[in-house]
Every structure is written in C-alpha cells, then in structure tokens.
C-alpha cells in the first residue's frame, strides 16, 4: 500500500451566509485549495471526488456531490457524496486517502459543504435532530445538545468535572478563533462570559455549544509522485483510523466516553507508529465543550477524568504541550456540518507548513478527530511533515 499526501487544502469563510448556496461556497473552498498548491496543478488532474454533507434543509438530497463538481467545472469526474452526519467529510477524506493508497487515483479531491442558516428555526431544529437515534432518543424529546449534555452530566458526576472546566474550552477556542479571519465567531470570550451564559441544555450553556454555520472546505489527496512534483513541502497521511458506534447514546458501553473515538484513535496511532505524546497539535471535534474533554481522554491525551485538569493547566493552550483547536475549533471557527472534517485537515495542513494563524512552533505530527452525531461514526487522522530533500 502506497502513502497518501496532502498537496493542498483550503476553506471558504465559515459564517452565516444565508444568501449563499452550497455550490458557491464550495467554489470558494476549491479555489483556496488550488491556491494553496505550490506548483501549477491543473484541475483536469483530479481523478476522483468524495464530498461530505448532511444536507441540512433537505436541499438536493440526491446527487449533491455531482452537482458540486459539475458546477465547479470538474466535468465528468466520478463523485461520491458521503453522509455520516458531522463526520461526513472526515469520512470523505478517508475515502480519498483509500483511493490514493490503493492506486485507484493519483489525485483525489475530498471536501464537504453545508448551508444551515437560511431556514426557519423550527426547520433548522428539525434537521439538527436527524443524526440522533430517531426511534428512541429523539422520541424522548431530547436534542443534539441534550445528548451531549447528558454525557456532560455523567462526566461531571463521575469525575467532578465542573462548569468552569467546560467553559475553559470556549475561552481557549475563542482565543484561537479570534486570530482566524475565516472563523464564524472570531471574538474572544472571558471565563466569566462562558460560565454565566444562558442555559441551552443543562449543564451546557450557550458558550458550551458550537454555532450553526455555513461553509465549505476541500483537500487534495495525492500520491507521493504527485506530491513531489507539485509540492515544496510534504504532508503525509501517517495514520488513518475510523470506527462506528451505536447511534444512540443509550445503547453505548459508556456514557462518559465515545468508544468509537477510542477505537479510531488506536488505529490511527498504530498506523502512524506514534503515540499521543508525540503529537505537536490536534484539531478535535468540539461541537459541545464536553466533546473536547471526552476527546482528550478518548485519544489518550490524558487519563480518564483528567481532561478538566489539562484545561486548567493550559496543556492544550497554544503555548502548551499539546495545542488543541488552534483554528478555533467548531466552537469559534464554526461547524458547517459536512465541511467540518476536511476543515480540520485544512488547519493540520497549514500547521505542518508553518502557515497557520495560530502557529505551533515547528510541528512534525498533528492529529484531526471528527465525530458524527454523538459518536456513531468517528475518523481520526495523523499527519506528518516530511523533510523534502533538496
């Protein structure tokens, strides 16, 4: 099996653009991706495309992937639309990696898109619930925030995690996002702001929840030959892990962990031949503040129950040992559902090339972690910067 590399990655601005279409947003992401390529790669070189979206609002439920590539002028390129809720483009990226590693494609486009802010609030609330387990979880009247809030309640009970711990995720990620011109909520917030925000689903408040966002992101996954031909720096996909879990929280083996994250992380580390201690940065799925804490524990950044301490001690701050969500994360950069997974890869690509807005000092390994729903599908990828011999 050959290696896959990232040749380019880019995103549209993330934000509230109710007048935009998913097609035009993806145009922006694609242009940014092509601009990020060092050499002159022609779009005609793209062999295959994998595009992720939930399709919030019900727009173009069928064939939205081909609609995007044809709109872009990638005429005739075989395009697969991937749906795995919030992990749609994490999985689209995985498919692109698989296509390149297998030799089927030399240049594969992975990406995602979502438009979420152009519908009535009732309509939006309906759509936000579609990735929960529909027969029982949703019938209990809960929401997406409610399910994560349930996990938070269990974590707080088991490990004495506090509202302040949850709020530190918002403070840190907003601090990072404020440096990111493409972030949806690019402002800083204080711990006091974050602790005292109005409740959304107890114990989660407004600052513990990511926004609904419009946006698109894209990544060019290529073979080593293509990477060397067109790239000045080599960003290798060192490890690819993914796992499924029960869609409903109530059927999982743990309420204080996302078991699919644990399995996906183990696979990605094993393939990369490293452990979490060798990571230089991470982009983790912080749709709700508790999700970032669970990610720390599930991905081995710390022991069970220690996530709150990591935040208190600043370990995941930009100047800490393991800077996490330097892009602003879903909390501040925004969470256009289908665009989030490849959006995380955009940040990893920038970090490893030294081009991030909140740049980590000379990183070698980075990780992205993308969760679908409340844990029904997870992808974890480890990236490595390789030195190019002159």
């Amino acid at each position, binding site marked *: 099996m050959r290696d896959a590399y990232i040749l380019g990655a880019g995103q549209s601005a993330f934000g509230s653009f109710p007048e935009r279409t998913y097609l035009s947003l993806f145009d922006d992401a694609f242009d940014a991706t092509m601009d990020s390529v060092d050499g002159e790669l022609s779009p005609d070189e793209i062999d295959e495309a994998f595009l992720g979206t939930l399709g919030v609002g019900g727009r173009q439920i069928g064939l939205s992937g081909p609609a995007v590539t044809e709109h872009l002028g990638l005429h005739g390129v075989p395009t697969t639309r991937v749906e795995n809720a919030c992990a749609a483009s994490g999985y689209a990226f995985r498919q692109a990696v698989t296509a390149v590693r297998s030799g089927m494609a030399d240049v594969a486009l992975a990406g995602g898109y979502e438009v979420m802010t152009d519908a009535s609030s009732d309509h939006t609330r309906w759509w936000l619930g579609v990735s929960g387990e529909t027969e029982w979880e949703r019938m209990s009247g809960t929401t997406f925030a409610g399910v994560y809030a*349930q996990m938070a309640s*269990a974590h707080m009970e088991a490990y004495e995690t506090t509202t302040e711990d949850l709020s530190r995720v918002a403070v840190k990620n907003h601090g990072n996002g404020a440096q990111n011109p493409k972030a949806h909520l690019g402002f800083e917030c204080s711990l006091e702001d974050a602790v005292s925000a109005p409740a959304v689903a107890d114990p989660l408040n407004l600052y513990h929840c990511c926004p609904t966002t419009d946006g698109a992101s894209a990544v060019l996954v290529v073979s080593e030959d293509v990477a060397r031909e067109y790239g000045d720096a080599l960003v290798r996909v060192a490890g690819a892990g993914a796992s499924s879990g029960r869609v409903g929280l109530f*059927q999982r083996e743990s309420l204080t962990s996302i078991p699919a994250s644990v399995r996906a992380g183990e696979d990605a580390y094993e393939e990369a031949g490293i452990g979490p201690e060798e990571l230089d940065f991470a982009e983790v799925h912080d749709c709700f503040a508790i999700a970032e804490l669970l990610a720390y524990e599930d991905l081995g950044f710390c022991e069970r129950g220690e996530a709150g301490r990591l935040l208190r001690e600043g370990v995941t701050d930009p100047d800490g040992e393991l800077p996490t969500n330097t892009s602003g994360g879903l909390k501040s950069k925004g969470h256009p559902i289908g665009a989030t997974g490849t959006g995380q890869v955009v940040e990893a690509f920038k970090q490893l090339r030294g081009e991030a807005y909140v740049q980590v000092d000379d990183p070698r390994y980075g990780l992205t972690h993308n969760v679908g729903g409340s844990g029904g599908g997870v992808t974890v990828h480890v990236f490595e910067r390789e030195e190019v011999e002159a």
Partner: protein
Amino acid sequence: MRGIVAGSAYVPRFRLESEKVEAAWGTNHASGVEEKAVPAADEDALTMAIAAARRVLEDAALDRATLETVAVATTTPPLEEGDLVPQLVRALDLPADVASVTATQHAAAGAEALSSALDADGPVLVVAADCPEGEPADADHAMGAGAAAFVIDDDPAVTIRDVAWHNDHTPGVRFRERGERDVGSLDITTYERTALREAVTETASALEVDLEGVGAAAVHQPDGGLPYRITGDIPVSGEAVAAGTVADRIGDAGAATVPIGLLAALAEAEDDATLGVFLGGGTAAALACEGSLPVSGLEDLEDGKSLEYATYLRERGYVVDGEVAGGGANVSLPNWRRSLEQRYRLVAGECPECGGVTFPPKGACQECHARVEFEPVEASRTGTTRAVTVIGQGGAPPEFAELQQRDGAYAVAIVELEAGDGTVTLPAQLTDVDPESVAVGDAVRPTIRKIYTQEGVPRYGAKFEPAE
C-alpha cells in the same frame, strides 16, 4: 352476587384553587369547588385510565389472562373515533380476546360500564377516566380530571345489589356539539335543576334499598354544591352526600367523578348502604352497594401541586396552538406499532448466547454483538438516572414544541433498569417533576404518557417520574 373486588383511583398531581379562577375572571362558576385537579399536558383520558387500571390490577392480584371484559367510560376519548379499549389492552398486557365496552357520550357513562360488568361473566376491568373542557370564561371553572378503576367479579368485597335506570330527554342540560371540545349547557337554571332532581329521585327511589339508611351517596357532581341541591326530594342526609362528594377537591371529572366519589365512600363505608347516582344528559342510573373495601390511589385526592392561573391555561392547552411545525421524527406508524411492547412495558431482550440484555431487542446483541433471537424480559419498574439534561423552554425539537409550550422545560434522562440478569439503559423524558431538581442517580419509575400527536394520531409511551 357480583360486585367490586378491587378499586383504585388516579388523580393528576396539578391543582388549581378556585380563588385563582375568581381572581382571573372576577367571578367563579364552580360552586362548592375549593380546588380542582388539572391533567398535565401529556395526560389524557387514556393515560389516566392506564394509571388507575394499573393500580387496580395490582391490588386485585388478578391473573390478567382470566379477564373476560374490559369496559371504559369517558366523555373525552383522545380520538372521537378510534381505539380505546385496545390501547388499554396493549398498555396493560391484557388478553386480546376480552369483550370490549366503550361507554361515552354522557357523564353517566360510568354507570353503563359498571352495569355491563355486572351483566358479564368472569372478572371485568372497568375504568372511568375523564378530563372535560369548557369555555374558560365560565364552564371551565369547575372542569377537573381523574380516573377510577374497578375489578368486578363474583364473591366481591362490595356487593352491588341493585341498579335502577331512568331515561328522559332533557335537551340543553349538558351537551357538547360534534367536533367541539367545550362542554356546554344552556344554563336555564330552574329547568335544569328540576330535571336533575327528578332523575335522582326517580332512580334512587326505584332501588330496593331504604334510602334513610344510606350511609354515603356519590351523586352527580359537576360542582361541589349541586349534589346537595338535587337530593332534596330523597331522604338521604347531607352527611351521606358529603361522604360521596369529591368535586370539592378535584372538580368535575366528567364520567369519572361519581365513580371516584363512590370509591372514596366505599373506602370509609361501614354497614350502611352506599349509593352511586349517575346523571348524564337525560340518562340516569343509580346503584346500591353493600360493604367496604380498601381503595388505592385515594391519597391523590389530597395531594397536589398548585398552579398559577396562566400556567393552568397553558398546561390545559387553552392558549397553545397544537400544530407540529417542521414535522416530527419520522418513525412510521407500522414501525411504531411493532415497538408497543417496548414503549408500554419496556420489554427488553436477553441474549441466549451471552446473557446480555438489549433494549430495544432488535439488531445485534449490545453485549456480544451476535445476531440472536432474543428472549423477551420485562425491565424492572424502578430505575436510576445515569445521565440527565434539561431541555429549556423554546429548545425542544419541533414535535415537542407544543408539549413544551404547555408544560415548560422538561428533563430527559438516560435511565438504567434491571432486566433479566443484566441492566438496560434507555432514553426517556421525565414527567411530573421539577426538571431543575433532577440529578444523576435519582430513582425513577415508568408512567405511560402521551409523547405527541403526529398526523392526527396520538402516540403514547413510557416516561419516567420520581419513585417515592
């Protein structure tokens, strides 16, 4: 002789004091009602019937498979036409081959249901459950809610010695137009009261019982004062009427008021006869009972959580538009029906390979992930919350928006229950509890409530309430 083997009452926990009605409207049309029972937004005649019936079936220690007939009385069936007895059968795991009786159409429906049970053979479950509504400015003032359940059989604790009927057309006394929810009356005061008094006199006098010796009488009680006024022509004492009157505490619970009053009287009865006098439109019936029996659920009559008037209007749905905006979760009715054993009775599946328990018992075993034929096991009826959240006002999914507008913020938990040799967890809404008071580790028990109505069809299932 046949009669009452067991009896139970159920009254919703909310109360509205008449002084609040008076403060709101500057007048109060609920004579003799101090406070009334208010059904929660997720309660209706069916859920109250299930609650009362569950109690009486436990008290009667009856083998449910031996039930021959199920008779339900209500003027407020959730659907004007549609299943009622069959829903009780599914919810309570009763035999599908019971004869079914549904008495509705007037407030004396309880008499019809009890009478049909006396005429039947074998054990009969009789339930009267009702929650009438009226114009908030006036008829609503007295409208309450409640349910009474009976097991009628041979060799009873309370013998029903005699039943007398009287039918005379009395137009305009108490009626509801087709398609309307408000019970009305033309309020022709003397005409009405005379008609009711004559019906009481005709039926009670026809009983083979010495009325002067009656110890207690549950008499038609659309408010707390009328039963005294319409018994003026029979020699039954005011104390006897008081012993059978519950409308002063729960208001007018339609077809359920006299049955609840009768059970309250029977719980206290000694050697004297106890009367039940049912009036509904022009239909009147009286029955004479002898004996006494313990009645569960009567504590509901005395206990309640007081509501403010504005909250009351919301809770009852008088000021909320029930349209589901944006559509509900897409669980088809055929699929829903297939899961009724889980929704009503929490039937989980035990894996024959590893002994693990899976809920719902579909797909692969949650423990060993093998695809097996599960052995059905009913989960325990008390459980523990393992994770909780509160969905605040305005934050509910659209299909729960109406419930939330009416009942306010609600808690949703992951509840752990014992089942077989293992445990199962399921997501469930909590009801009849202050959501802010709910915590991880609370003891809870299931109660059947309305989930929501979609495409005109109300769907019911287990919610959880605090376990004492």
